[in-house]
């Protein structure tokens, strides 16, 4: 049996790749960043992103280091249903397609998701929403930084702290120089590399092992993984789906892209990116399922995907996996840094604290915020927190925001009290479920409670919201 105690790439090779790609992203970031002459350009890439770049940025952002690491973990621990459960996160992108059309119709000059919640539901719901989204964004950033450090260590033996620091440094620098122009431009190249890499690695693993061999090995050693009624896997299906809905529907990463794309482009780009994303966790998951058939000893489930891929494909494969991992990390970290700093500058700085509405001052604050976010992420990542724990704890929070967003976009009778109660009670009960029943129930229960409260509040409400209140005040 193969052992997990060794790495396949020499640390020097790892460093060489890190420096080469890091320098490349920074160079491209500075190059594309020259187009960001105004604050609007820096934040939203001039609101003129087309179909190809729009689709690529949505897909690349959603292929995170968590996809590379957690999709295989889902497959390894929950089998076939686990793979499908992770893929259902693509439904979030598919359903965000119609939502993005509505967002562009209601607030064509909007900047952030916080803008919408503030104008639609008022200050209390807005503050609550900001707390949820900032907690989630930090959890996502930290989980990716942690994942990145661990992956680089597994693949090349680069010490965790060094790899994690390097990744964060590169992403902070090019986002700092180029804003959303740099983020979207690099996302395009990164998405092409990710797609080719994942398809290639998945196909080669399949070619080397074969479906029958994988199935037979699982049947003997891991029978629950092919059990269609595996309880935890069944529950994780909807739990993961609602977590994905919550992530996409509420977070400014997606709203900023909806604002940045041309009006007619946004719905099509989100839909196509959802379709392209769907098979990626299945390919990544299959790689993990073949670990047993290949006789690979897995110690840390978080690293099973790269471990198997590197083992099957040798040194060249390890280099390929390293590049794909670095691209998936960069494509998500840069997006989160940009979108979260937008949210902090626009909602907290400008609207809450009354910062000067001056181009130069806002751009300076924005850059300082990106640096501060990078530093905070580094501090939290240095503690090497548990990946699943970090990410899934924020699941019930974001799931509670699904229905306030949908209701707020489509229904005049959706009201502030309903939205606040839906987010508060949904989050609390979801968190209780997380600890009492298991992580695989938290987002599901939170979404169900939040939906029930929103529907009841709409039924009892006499609210007749005037949509013009959003579009007239905004921009």
């Amino acid at each position: 049996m193969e052992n997990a105690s060794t790495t396949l790439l020499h640390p020097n090779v790892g460093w060489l790749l890190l420096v080469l790609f890091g320098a490349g992203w920074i160079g491209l970031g500075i190059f594309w960043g020259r187009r960001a002459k105004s604050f609007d350009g820096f934040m939203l890439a001039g609101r003129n992103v087309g179909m190809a770049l729009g689709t690529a940025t949505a897909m690349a952002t959603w292929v995170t280091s968590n996809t590379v690491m957690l999709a295989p973990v889902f497959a390894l621990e929950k089998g076939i249903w686990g793979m499908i459960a992770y893929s259902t996160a693509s439904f979030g992108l598919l359903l965000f397609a119609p939502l993005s059309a509505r967002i562009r119709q209601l607030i064509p000059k909007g900047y952030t998701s916080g803008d919408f919640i503030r104008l639609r539901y008022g200050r209390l719901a807005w503050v609550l929403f900001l707390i949820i989204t900032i907690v989630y964004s930090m959890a996502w950033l930290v989980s990716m930084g942690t994942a990145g450090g661990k992956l680089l260590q597994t693949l090349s033996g680069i010490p965790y702290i060094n790899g994690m620091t390097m990744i964060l440094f590169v992403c902070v620098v090019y986002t700092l120089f180029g804003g959303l122009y740099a983020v979207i431009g690099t996302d395009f190249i990164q998405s092409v590399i990710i797609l080719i890499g994942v398809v290639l690695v998945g196909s080669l693993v399949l070619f080397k092992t074969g479906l029958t061999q994988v199935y037979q090995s699982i049947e003997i050693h891991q029978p629950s993984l092919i059990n269609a009624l595996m309880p935890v896997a069944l529950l994780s299906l909807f739990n993961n789906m609602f977590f994905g809905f919550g992530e996409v529907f509420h977070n400014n990463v997606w709203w900023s892209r909806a604002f940045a794309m041309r009006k007619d482009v946004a719905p099509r780009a989100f839909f196509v990116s959802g379709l392209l994303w769907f098979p990626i966790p299945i390919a990544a998951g299959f790689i993990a399922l073949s670990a047993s058939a290949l006789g690979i000893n897995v110690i840390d489930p978080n690293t099973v995907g790269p471990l198997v891929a590197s083992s099957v494909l040798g040194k060249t494969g390890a280099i390929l996996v390293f590049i794909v991992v670095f691209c998936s990390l960069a494509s998500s970290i840069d997006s989160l840094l940009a979108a979260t700093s937008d949210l902090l500058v626009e909602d907290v700085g400008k609207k809450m604290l009354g910062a000067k509405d001056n181009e130069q001052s806002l751009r300076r604050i924005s850059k300082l915020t990106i640096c501060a976010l990078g530093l905070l992420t580094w501090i939290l990542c240095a503690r090497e927190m548990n990946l699943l724990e970090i990410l899934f704890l924020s699941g019930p929070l974001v799931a509670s925001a699904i229905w306030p967003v949908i209701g707020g976009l489509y229904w005049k009778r959706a009201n502030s009290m309903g939205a606040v109660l839906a987010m508060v009670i949904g989050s609390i009960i979801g968190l209780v479920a997380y600890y009492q029943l298991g992580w695989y129930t938290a987002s599901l229960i939170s979404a169900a409670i939040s939906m029930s409260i929103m529907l009841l509040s709409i039924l009892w409400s006499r609210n007749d919201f005037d949509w013009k209140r959003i579009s007239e005040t905004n921009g």
Partner: protein
Amino acid sequence: MLGIGLMAGPYQGIGEPPVPRWVSPNESPYLADEGKVLLEWQLPEGSPASVPFQFQLEQSLQPDFTEPAMRYEGIDRATFVTGLAKGNYYYRVRVLSDSEGSGAWSKVVEVNVEFVSTTLVVTLFSIGLGVFVMTVVSILKGHRNCLQHQESQRKQDEGGQL
């Protein structure tokens, strides 16, 4: 990767092979409610650090290991077991050696796999399905209404211009 063959007979001259101790799970019986468990062991203090010990891990459905199955053999000191079906499993580990004879087995650790209740699964799955349908229907219906509204607005505008 280091093959097993390369590691044969590394303990010559160190006497009796040491007996591994369990690090994880830290209790026996251990309840694995998701069908997974990290099995991790270590050697007692004083074991020669320079020797690349090789281990053998066995799994059995009986506490007396009447029908054991080899679960892992190699130099790693842990393995992550997943996909276990409902039931009780027993594990033991020892140091392997072809020259001094294999070491003694560790204490047996028991892992009980017990999933969440079927009632809870069916209830939550049904709720999940309901919320999913409601979410999709609400968005699609809302989207259709918006398109219809835009269309009627456009016609009104055209009528006004005429």
